[in-house]
């Protein structure tokens, strides 16, 4: 994969001493769709603003095609941004907004006009050129913002939570639309969001961020199936995170029972976290002959459409279970889990202090 952007140990410390980015490194390939995912205050937008040139990093490097672009102001970077609230120019109409970049470069008016039409077609806004920005819906404005950025043929397009203001249905549509545009245009997309589902749907790779650090970088499947720590597991999808003891390779003890698993290399009798996806926790009738498994009581039962959501109490713990088979509240059940469905993780490295500080900041 050809690298287009290479970020090396990027740090941003704000004037008040707050560390927004604490040494982030990531390589981004040509025509890749990379998502920066994390809760508010995790530094994802700061990272994006550094790439766009709106934030000056305290240290580190941003190499664009091998050249450090940190000294360059935004207007000298071949990178365009779709801003969170679109930042369209309300005094210009749709076509004038889209033509803003080419007009600045003094390009031929006729050529630009044709190009604007092509871009509006690409984002599904053919014939909207004369419309005023204020007369457009949120989804339409967002598409104008994309067209306005794409017309400059950037190598890299930065998108700062561009779908956050849209309703669910429109958001789903736009996710597919963006993915299509990215494939067709061959442009590298760096997409910021706090919506894990959005990230899983669209990305080639996801960087899960917390407290100014990348927690895990990988494909959506990697991130979902093999979260590297409790934070990632918790942030990506619903999950049960339990404290466990790795007795030895491929054997882990939790909920008072020993479970065979597929992980190794944690040492003997090591404290670990494990992740169980709710759909991987299987409930059996209490009469089932299976032995040496935890037993529990169904505490709540909710119908969720595709599946039932149950909370099952096992001693001190409560497990979240998704199943197509409902079990009445108060039913005693046995719990089984397949070895490959147990994801063992090192105990989280980030201290609770740092997390609290970031959480407060985010508010």
């Amino acid at each position, binding site marked *: 994969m050809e690298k287009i952007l290479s970020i090396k140990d990027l740090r941003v410390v704000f004037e008040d001493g707050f560390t927004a980015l604490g040494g982030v490194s990531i390589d981004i390939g040509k025509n890749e769709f990379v998502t920066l995912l994390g809760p508010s205050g995790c530094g994802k937008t700061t990272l994006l603003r550094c790439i*766009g040139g709106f934030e000056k990093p305290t240290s580190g490097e941003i190499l664009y095609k091998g050249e450090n672009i940190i000294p360059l102001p935004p*207007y000298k970077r071949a990178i365009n941004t779709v*801003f*969170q609230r679109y930042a369209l120019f309300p005094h*210009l109409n749709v076509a*004038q907004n889209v033509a*803003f970049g080419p007009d*600045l*470069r003094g390009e031929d008016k006729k050529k630009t006009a044709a190009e604007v039409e092509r871009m509006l077609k690409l984002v599904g806004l053919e014939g909207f050129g004369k419309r005023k920005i204020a007369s457009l819906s949120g989804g339409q404005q967002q598409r104008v913002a994309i067209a306005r950025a794409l017309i400059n043929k950037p190598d890299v397009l930065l998108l700062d939570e561009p779908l956050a203001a849209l309703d669910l249905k429109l958001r789903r549509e736009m996710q597919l639309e963006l993915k299509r545009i990215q494939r067709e245009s061959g442009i590298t997309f760096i997409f910021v969001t706090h919506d894990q589902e959005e990230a899983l749907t669209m990305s080639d790779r996801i960087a899960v961020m917390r407290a100014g650090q990348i927690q895990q970088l990988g494909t959506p499947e990697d991130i979902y199936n093999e979260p590297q720590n409790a934070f990632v597991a918790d942030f990506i999808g619903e999950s049960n995170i339990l404290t466990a003891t790795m007795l030895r390779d491929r054997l882990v003890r939790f909920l008072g029972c020993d479970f065979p698993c597929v992980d190794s290399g944690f040492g003997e009798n090591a404290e670990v976290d494990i992740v169980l996806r709710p759909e991987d926790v299987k409930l059996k009738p209490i009469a089932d002959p299976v032995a040496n498994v935890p037993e529990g009581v169904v505490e709540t039962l909710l119908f969720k459409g595709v599946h039932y959501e149950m909370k099952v109490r096992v001693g001190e713990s409560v497990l979240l279970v998704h199943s197509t088979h409902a079990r009445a509240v108060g039913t005693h059940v046995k719990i089984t889990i397949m070895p490959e469905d147990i994801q063992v993780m090192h105990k989280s490295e980030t201290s609770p202090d740092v997390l609290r500080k970031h959480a407060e900041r985010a508010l």
Partner: protein
Amino acid sequence: MKRNKALAVPFMLWAAIFIVVPLVMIVWYGVTVEEPIPYTEIVQEDGTTVFQLEDGSVTAVRPQKKTVVSLSNFRRMFEPTYLRLLLRSFKVAIITTLICLLLGYPVALILTGTDFKRPALWLMLLILPMWMNFLLRTYSWMSILENNGILNNWIASLREMLPAFDEWLTSRGVRRRIIFLYNENAVILGMVYNYLSFMIMPIYTVIEKIDKSLLEAAADLGASPVKSFTRVTLPYSIPGVLEGITMVFVPAVTTFVISQLMGGGKVPLIGDIIQNQFGKSSDWHFGATLSLLVMVVVLAFMGALNKIDKDDEPVKEVRIL
């Protein structure tokens, strides 16, 4: 709804008494003149005097002047003397407005700059002098500029200290005491000083409200700081500029205090003449006519400004640089 209407009553009354009634009175005075009633004085045999009017009737009371509707004051208004005054008032007001704009816009722009610390403090320092009495401020300028004033004294002591400077000034024919006051420039200076903050404030408010992400978007799309200014900041600040122009131009075109103090009566403006009609000349009718004239001209001016402001067509491109 009814309650809302009831709340508006005090204001309506206030507006009627203090706006509508005076306006009607001005119009009435403007379209009327006082005319003497012609009569013949007849001393009768018993020594008493009677007055015979033109229609032959006789009265024992000396006839007073009568108020008649007449447009003669409108004819008088267009005499060259008054037109020249009106023109001068406009000239002075336009120059004042332009200077205020040229000084005020950059100040507003600098104050709203991202790297400018504590803009509120600076804004307050700019406005602080306006908390002082208007006359006091103008008198201060007079004591700085008068022939024996602070400025002339400084120049004089500089001349004493630096003979070369003195010689240079003398060779250029500069008088020992430079006359700063009692000319048009002094009047303009006084107006600029007094009205500058009326220009800065609206422009500052408008620029300050421009969404910073619009400037970031412009930079992102390749606009240098200069282009960002001409393409985004400038078009967005136009409403503030128009408001500033109104706030400076209207008082500047009607003032009489500044022209009397700084101009020493040598630079009369239309405001001075109007004030004169209600004072020394005691011709309220002509004063009202002149007031109407100024009112119409100012209204026309503001209407024209409003038209620019409300113009639905978006500002396509502003290329001043």
